[in-house]
C-alpha cells in the first residue's frame, strides 16, 4: 500500500474516503466510504453499523452535538481499531447516530480523527496525504 495516502472519492460534491472498522466480534475489517469533513468537530458513525459490528452503543455516555437541523444527542462508542489508509488507530472514540434515510453515507470522519494528522489535500491529484504529528489534544 502506498504510505500516507488516501484516494478522494467524490459522490456529487461530497468528499468521501475509505475507512476500515475492525470488529472484534467478527474478527475482520469492514470497509466503507465515509464523508471526510474538516468542518465537523467529531466523527459520527451510523448506529446501525456499529451495532452490526458488535459494539454496545448503549454502554457509553452521550454527547450533545449541534447539527444543521438543531441539537442532537449521540452516544459515545470506542472503536477497537480503525484503518485510515495505512494508518492503524486503536481505541478511537466516535459517536453513534441514526442518520436520516436519505443520507448516502454511513458516517462522517471529523476533526477529532483528522487532526491527529497533518494533511495535504491534493485536489488536482485526487489524493489526501496524511502525516503523523497533528494535534492530538482535541477530544
Amino acid at each position, binding site marked *: 500500500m502506498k504510505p500516507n495516502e488516501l484516494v478522494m472519492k467524490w459522490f456529487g460534491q461530497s468528499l468521501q474516503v475509505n475507512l476500515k472498522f475492525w470488529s472484534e466480534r467478527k474478527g475482520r475489517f469492514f470497509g466503507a466510504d465515509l*464523508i471526510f469533513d474538516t468542518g465537523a468537530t467529531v466523527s459520527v458513525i451510523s448506529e446501525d453499523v456499529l451495532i452490526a459490528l458488535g459494539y454496545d452503543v448503549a454502554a457509553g455516555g452521550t454527547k450533545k452535538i449541534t447539527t444543521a437541523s438543531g441539537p442532537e444527542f449521540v452516544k459515545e462508542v470506542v472503536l477497537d481499531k480503525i484503518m485510515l489508509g495505512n494508518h492503524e488507530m486503536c481505541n478511537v472514540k466516535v459517536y453513534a447516530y441514526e442518520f436520516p434515510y436519505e443520507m448516502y453515507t454511513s458516517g462522517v470522519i471529523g476533526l477529532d480523527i483528522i487532526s491527529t494528522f497533518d494533511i495535504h489535500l491534493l485536489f488536482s491529484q485526487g489524493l489526501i496525504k496524511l502525516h503523523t504529528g497533528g494535534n492530538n489534544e482535541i477530544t
Partner: protein
Amino acid sequence: MYKTMEQVWQEYDGYWVYMVNCREDEYGSAIGGEVIKYDKDKRVIYKEIGKHPGKGHQFFSYIGKIPDRLGVFV
C-alpha cells in the same frame, strides 16, 4: 462471482451494496469483490454486516451519484 468496482458501479448504480472477499488497491480501497446483497434501502444492507464468512475485508457503501436534487450539509 468476483466483480471489479467498475463493474459494480455499472450494475448497481443507485443501490447500497455489500461485498465480501474484497481485493484492495495500493491505497487500501476495495477494487472488487463479490456482491452478495444490494438494495435501495441501506438498512437492509446493514443487517447483512458480519453475517457472511470469507477471506479479506468486507465492504459496504452506496454506489452511484447522490441525486442532484439532494445537497449534503453536515
